[in-house]
């Protein structure tokens, strides 16, 4: 074990936004004053009981929280090991966990008097959540989305447009999530006076990784309570998929200081770790991009490499800085699932439980299928079902149809 383990895994980041060596504020000077303002506005909001009270109303009546913790009986029988619970984030309004964070950030943006919201999106789940809350609060919304993702996630593009958002297809680089984030940052630098950047994951400059984690931690807090009610004790293990890592961080964070609970994050291994993939912990090393130091996929010269995953939401060459730190300290074990494994898991959950998962969440289901059989029947395992798969139905349908030929 690492001899320098902290007393608590839940005390980060420090006042400069660092989790160990990770995190920080690597942004252009134009943005720096705004980031400092945001840090202050968020700290004020956090200390204001009225803010939390207002959030709670929307979380309950608009998002539909708490999301159920559901015993997946047939999946448990099929795998023949651990007792599996699904945390049903896919039942939230807008169909994924993303709305938890967006609600929080939009409330902060309103406190700051910002009228224009921008966001980046990969699978479109964060874009849809942002477009939704902008519609609800009457804010202008611009969503940057890689042109490749616009193609493969058409249902979400249509949803965003119906909600009144402007979707900008990004043509630079690999035309996926990384490039969408670059263009969102360029927009922000240009429109810094009236614009709030609603980042969709636990990455970016401080305070974003902390703030997004805090808003998503409701997933883990509910899970603790719900598991106590269902089984009279805490779970034995947790598992979640990771692109930037917000759904995983939201589930994990409230459990980090329970040392007996095993925690697994699942990165996207794409075609396999020796080929094109999106597993930045397994295949990358520490570097600096998009405002933070974290594990990144890059070449020997420090140029960022293009990620690949069947799932647009995981198709990113980096990971949130707190995950990089949890990886280095060994508190969380990071695994990876290939495109093929995710496709199989997508079908497995659909057939056994009548729940079509997002391709992102299917990566967690894939590793669950390996881990659960190795554990006893009284082992309680929670998988974060971070999103629903409606958006993936056309893409997966095409793949399966092509294979039948």
């Amino acid at each position, binding site marked *: 074990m690492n001899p320098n383990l902290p007393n608590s895994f839940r005390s980060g980041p420090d006042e*400069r936004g660092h989790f160990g060596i990770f995190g*920080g*504020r*690597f*942004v*252009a*000077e*134009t*943005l*720096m*004053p*705004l980031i400092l303002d945001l840090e202050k506005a968020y700290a004020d909001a956090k200390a204001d009981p009225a803010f939390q009270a207002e959030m709670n109303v929307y979380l309950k009546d608009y998002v539909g929280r708490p999301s159920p913790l559901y015993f997946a009986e047939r999946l448990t029988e099929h795998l023949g090991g651990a007792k599996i619970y699904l945390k049903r984030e896919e039942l939230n309004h807008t169909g994924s966990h993303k709305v938890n964070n967006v609600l929080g950030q939009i409330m902060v943006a309103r406190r700051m008097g910002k009228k224009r919201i921008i966001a980046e999106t990969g699978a479109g789940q964060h874009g849809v959540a942002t477009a939704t809350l902008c519609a609800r609060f009457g804010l202008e919304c611009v969503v940057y989305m890689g042109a490749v993702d616009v193609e493969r996630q058409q249902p979400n593009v249509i949803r965003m447009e119906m909600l009144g958002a402007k979707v900008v297809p990004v043509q*630079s*680089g690999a035309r996926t999530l*990384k490039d969408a984030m*670059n263009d969102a*940052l*360029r927009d922000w*630098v*240009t*429109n*810094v*006076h009236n614009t709030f950047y609603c980042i969709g994951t636990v990455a970016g400059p401080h305070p974003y990784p902390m703030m997004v984690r805090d808003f998503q931690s409701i997933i883990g807090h509910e899970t603790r309570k719900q598991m106590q009610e269902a089984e009279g004790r805490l779970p034995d293990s947790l598992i979640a998929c990771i692109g930037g890592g917000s759904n995983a961080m939201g589930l994990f964070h409230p459990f980090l200081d329970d040392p007996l609970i095993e925690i697994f994050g699942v990165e996207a291994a794409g075609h396999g770790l020796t080929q094109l993939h999106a597993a930045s912990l397994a295949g990358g090393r520490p*570097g*600096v*991009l*998009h*405002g933070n*130091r974290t594990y*990144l996929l*890059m070449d*020997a*010269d*420090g*140029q*960022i490499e293009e990620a690949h995953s069947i799932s647009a939401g995981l198709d990113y060459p980096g990971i949130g800085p707190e995950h990089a730190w949890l990886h280095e300290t060994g508190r969380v074990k990071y695994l990876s699932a290939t495109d093929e494994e995710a496709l199989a898991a997508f079908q497995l959950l659909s057939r056994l439980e009548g729940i079509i998962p997002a391709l992102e969440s299917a990566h967690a289901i894939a590793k669950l299928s390996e881990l659960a059989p190795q554990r006893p029947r009284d082992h309680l395992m929670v998988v974060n079902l971070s999103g629903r798969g409606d958006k993936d139905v056309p893409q997966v349908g095409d793949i399966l149809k092509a294979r039948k030929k």
Partner: protein
Amino acid sequence: MTTRIDARFAELKQQGRSAFVTFVMAGDPDAKTSLDILKALPKAGADVIEIGMPFTDPMADGPSIQAAGLRALKGGMTLRKTLAMVRDFRKEDNATPIVLMGYYNPIYIYGVDSFLADAKAAGVDGLIIVDLPPEEDTELCIPAMKAGLNFIRLATPTTDDKRLPAVLANTSGFVYYVSITGITGAATADSKVVAEAVARIKRHTKLPVCVGFGIRTPETARAIAENANGAVVGTAIVDVVRANLDAEGRATPKTVSAVADLVSALAQGVRGAKQAAE
């Protein structure tokens, strides 16, 4: 410590004029052409040269400079080759200040200490790193100062009087005022607004203040140079490189001369400016 940058600004002050600062992307479209362009710049009237270090994800740059970086990377440019280019330039020119401009990750991966040693040995004078604000000074700024390189900070329209002292604290060589909120090449600087901003910065520092982002023509260059110690042009130069490539994106016999012609015209603009502000 007097650097080539300090010497050059002292010399220009004597001459009573502002500096013309040019930006070119290292390795655009290939290492040899790019070195030829570099060598042509002082003759065409560049007083200070900024060399872009290509990066895949230049978050503060507009389409022109993004594309130039990608052309360079496609042509096989690396940070090591960028330093080699400076070394070659220094064989013939030991006076024109060279400032490397770019993003932190390639330097971080190269290794901060070895990068600073190699850059100094190659004849680099200063660094402008877009994604290193004063909050991250321990990463590169402080080590660069110790290695004898100027760390040139960007000040922007959002840098208010309260924040300026922090931005200027570890800055040396000159201050680079970003004249617009936005990315490179996106908008045109308003010389009157810029003049007020430069005057504001000068209340906080004795360093020369150069202005960039949004200067494309000899006329704007002149207007800016009348109120600042230097005018920086990047996108317009990079655009001329692109306009003088063949259909496959390779250099043509016109590439270097077209850049030199534009730089001469811009230099005339800067030299036509009245006495620089003090």
